[in-house]
């Protein structure tokens, strides 16, 4: 086989590898852009709902002694909203939301998640404090996303 053909083969192989790298890079970038658009569209809406359910959590926690079920239901709403927004967040906020969800339902025996109904009153108020901070940081992210 002539030498120039072997060289051409080598160039072809290198180009294929480079093409694959570029494709992977573009795939990752396209996902980032998609998530950024989803964030811009959905985060302000979810933040509004999160503010409402956070206030509802505090309203229901005030009546914990009389009836704790509405407070636990309010936490379930919080969980649903956070699980919805989590995949669309950048890594730092995704970690914060993940940590919060883990605290909401800590794992028992490594795998099994405990039920929200096992929360004590003090633990529930502590989770409310953390939720307020988390909502504030998501609101800041929504403001930042306008400049993406």
């Amino acid at each position, binding site marked *: 086989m002539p030498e120039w053909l072997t060289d051409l083969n080598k160039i072809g192989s290198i180009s294929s590898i480079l093409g694959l790298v570029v494709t992977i890079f573009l795939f990752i970038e396209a996902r980032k852009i998609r998530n950024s658009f989803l964030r811009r569209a959905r985060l302000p809406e979810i933040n509004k709902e*999160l*503010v409402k359910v*956070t*206030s509802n959590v*505090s*309203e229901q*926690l*005030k009546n914990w002694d009389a009836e704790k079920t509405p407070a636990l239901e309010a936490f379930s709403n919080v969980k649903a909203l956070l699980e919805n927004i989590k995949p669309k967040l950048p890594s730092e906020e995704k970690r914060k939301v993940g940590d919060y969800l883990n605290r909401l339902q800590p794992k028992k025996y490594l795998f099994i998640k405990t039920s929200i109904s096992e929360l004590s009153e003090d633990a529930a*108020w*502590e989770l*409310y*404090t953390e*939720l*307020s*901070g988390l*909502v*504030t940081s998501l*609101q800041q992210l929504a403001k930042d996303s306008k400049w993406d």
Partner: protein
Amino acid sequence: MSTENKTAQLITKLIRETAKGNVKWVVEEAPRSLNYETEQSVPLYLQTKYKDKTLGIYDLRSKHFTDVDEYYWSESIGFCIVDNKGRVVWELKEYSPALLDLFNTAREQAAGIDDILDNLLSN
């Protein structure tokens, strides 16, 4: 623990204590530094004594200029510690849902909304 975390815990504690009736809020005149010679206005200021400290929470309207003679108003909630001469020695203006909840809880208590509604509903 950071000041931010301690403040968040204090706000939650005040919501709990206010709901239990252990902390009483009253409507007062806002400290001078909040209302005078500033580009802001405090239409409602609520104050309480908690562990010998005077704490205030207020509705804050701030003017934001977009040009020399163009501006808009924004609304937020402020929280402060006041010394015995009525001076604001520490202030928190960063919005958080818990701060808004504390303001609403304190306002409902100061207005005596429960008693008013009970009175209106009684025969």
